[in-house]
């Protein structure tokens, strides 16, 4: 700490003016990021909003229809079902897997030898490393409702009749399909956070005779609150917009029982070729995401993330 003060005094007194040099620095360091995200992210998002005002069809022909698409959205009878699916899907995937399982795996793999921990973490990273198409293939084989699928073979050995898992509980399937992938991000982030908990804390607690669970509760968890918050935020939004695996495994069915909002957008926009209506639906998702981000920002103390940098300021 003591060494910091003199250094600070080196930089602070210089009133930072937006000199050309500084503009050059900003351009060099932030320029590529801003350029790429603006061109391939912000502009398409705005364009999506504009397309939402048209009835562009599969043949890329259409006219401006104003708010017609949004009116159709409000009257859409399938919407309540789709929204319910989305809430259930996001909540349970997030809690059971992305955070819950992620945390469990992180705690367990950091409590055993480093080598074994790495092996188990690698296993749980496998689904994420697996190309989407291959992962879906494995699932389709697992849930095959005839007696030839993996699940029903096992049930057959136990003397049970074949079960159509997707019809039986579509929510369960989509939560697990995405959860097995989602758990690994939390696992990695929490593991590294747990490993960075100063060993002295844990050792001191242990010497005091604290049980492992108490150590976890009172020392580790408070120290990794920030990564948990991050995963919660990042993954909520990621889950809200993800649908590829659901599309590949259940197709959103039976009927609309596993169709989440993002998949509904895809079905309308791509499968039905209603690019205009699909864009309107997508735009609503964009707005929801932005509002959710605001909410997190305000209530989950995100300011931590943007703690003032230490070098210089305008």
């Amino acid at each position, binding site marked *: 700490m003591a060494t910091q003060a003199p250094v600070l005094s080196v930089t602070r007194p210089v009133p930072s003016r937006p000199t050309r040099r500084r503009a050059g620095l900003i351009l060099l360091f932030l320029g590529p990021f801003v350029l*790429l995200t603006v061109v391939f992210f912000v502009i398409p998002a705005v364009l999506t909003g504009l*397309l939402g005002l048209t009835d562009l069809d599969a043949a890329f022909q259409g006219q401006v229809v104003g708010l017609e698409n949004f009116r159709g959205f409000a009257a859409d009878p399938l919407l309540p079902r789709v929204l319910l699916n989305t809430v259930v899907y996001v909540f349970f995937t997030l809690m059971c897997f992305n955070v819950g399982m992620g945390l469990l795996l992180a705690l367990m793999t950091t409590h055993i030898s480093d080598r074994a921990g790495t092996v188990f973490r690698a296993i749980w990273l496998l689904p994420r490393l697996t190309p989407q198409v291959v992962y879906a293939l*494995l699932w389709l084989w697992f849930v095959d409702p005839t007696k030839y699928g993996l699940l029903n073979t096992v049930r057959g050995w136990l003397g049970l009749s074949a079960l159509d898992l997707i019809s039986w509980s579509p929510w369960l399937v989509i939560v697990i399909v995405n959860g097995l992938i989602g758990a690994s991000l939390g696992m990695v982030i929490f593991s590294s956070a747990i490993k960075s908990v100063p060993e002295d804390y844990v050792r001191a607690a242990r010497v005091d005779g604290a049980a492992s669970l108490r150590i976890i509760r009172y020392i580790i968890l408070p120290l990794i609150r920030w990564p948990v918050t991050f995963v919660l935020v990042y993954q909520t939004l990621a889950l809200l917009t993800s649908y*590829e695996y659901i599309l590949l495994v259940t197709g959103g069915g039976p009927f609309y029982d596993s169709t989440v909002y993002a998949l509904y957008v895809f079905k309308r926009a791509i499968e039905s070729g209603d*690019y205009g209506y*699909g864009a309107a639906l997508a735009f609503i998702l964009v707005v929801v995401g932005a509002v959710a981000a605001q909410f997190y920002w305000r209530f989950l103390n995100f300011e931590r993330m943007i703690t003032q940098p230490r070098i*210089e300021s305008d």
Partner: protein
Amino acid sequence: MAGLARRARRRDAAARAAIYGALGLLSLPIVIPYLWLVAAAFSQRVSYGLLPSGFTLNNWRFLWVGNLGFVTGTAGRLPNIWQVVWNSLVLAAGTTVVVVVVATLAGYFVSRHDFRRRAAFLKGALVLQAFPGITLLVALFILLRTLNLLNSVAGVILVIAALHLPFALFVMKGFFDGIPWDIEMSALIDGASRLRAWYTVLLPQVRNGIGAIAMFAFLWGWTDYIFVLTFILRRNSWTMALYLNAVIGEYRFVDYGLMAAVGVFYMIPSLLFFLFTQKYLLQITIGGTKA
């Protein structure tokens, strides 16, 4: 005291055994399907997709037979596998380079420098996570057409990289936040330019972060399906995802062995890349747990 420690140690050993048991049980549903996939890739027969039997390398013929023909259940001629592998590698490597370079530059700047609207900038980056990248498909298609980037792997690289940059930014910021700032300061005091200090002093400190986002970026590029499917309209630009998709064909699951072999082949590079970079993964800290 000694007795207490011994009891604690015994308790620890029991706890550890329980952890191994629990981890093993939890991991079984993941391990079994992959074992099946590998077994099926080397088996002559997979009766109704379940029990593989009889060793063969014939499922791997796509590597040396140019024209698979329709005995495979897929139509006509698939493009040469090595051309496809090359395209996929270019896509994955390109995405990696773009993401790593851009996120490292930006991550450093937002970690170390204040600038006007910095908070707004970070908030904006956070909000971008919420953007349904994939539902921007149609808009991106129109944009790429305008930029004349359709059908080019470069176009797909830029799109995938851009959609993941906010995430990579926060990861890199976390790593830069973790570096004691006097390291950089002393370099600056020694008269190094800011750029030089960044390059010679800070970069080596965030090697782990670079490794971690490089791994993620490689995977994004290597496994992508939807963007490639939408933006690549020519066969000679096919990637592995499209190749496997062609082998599966209408989800008919006709030739399980071939499908499994292509699937395993498709996974090998991601696994290799993972092995080389996995040690960096656990270094990820986001937003500064170490702060």
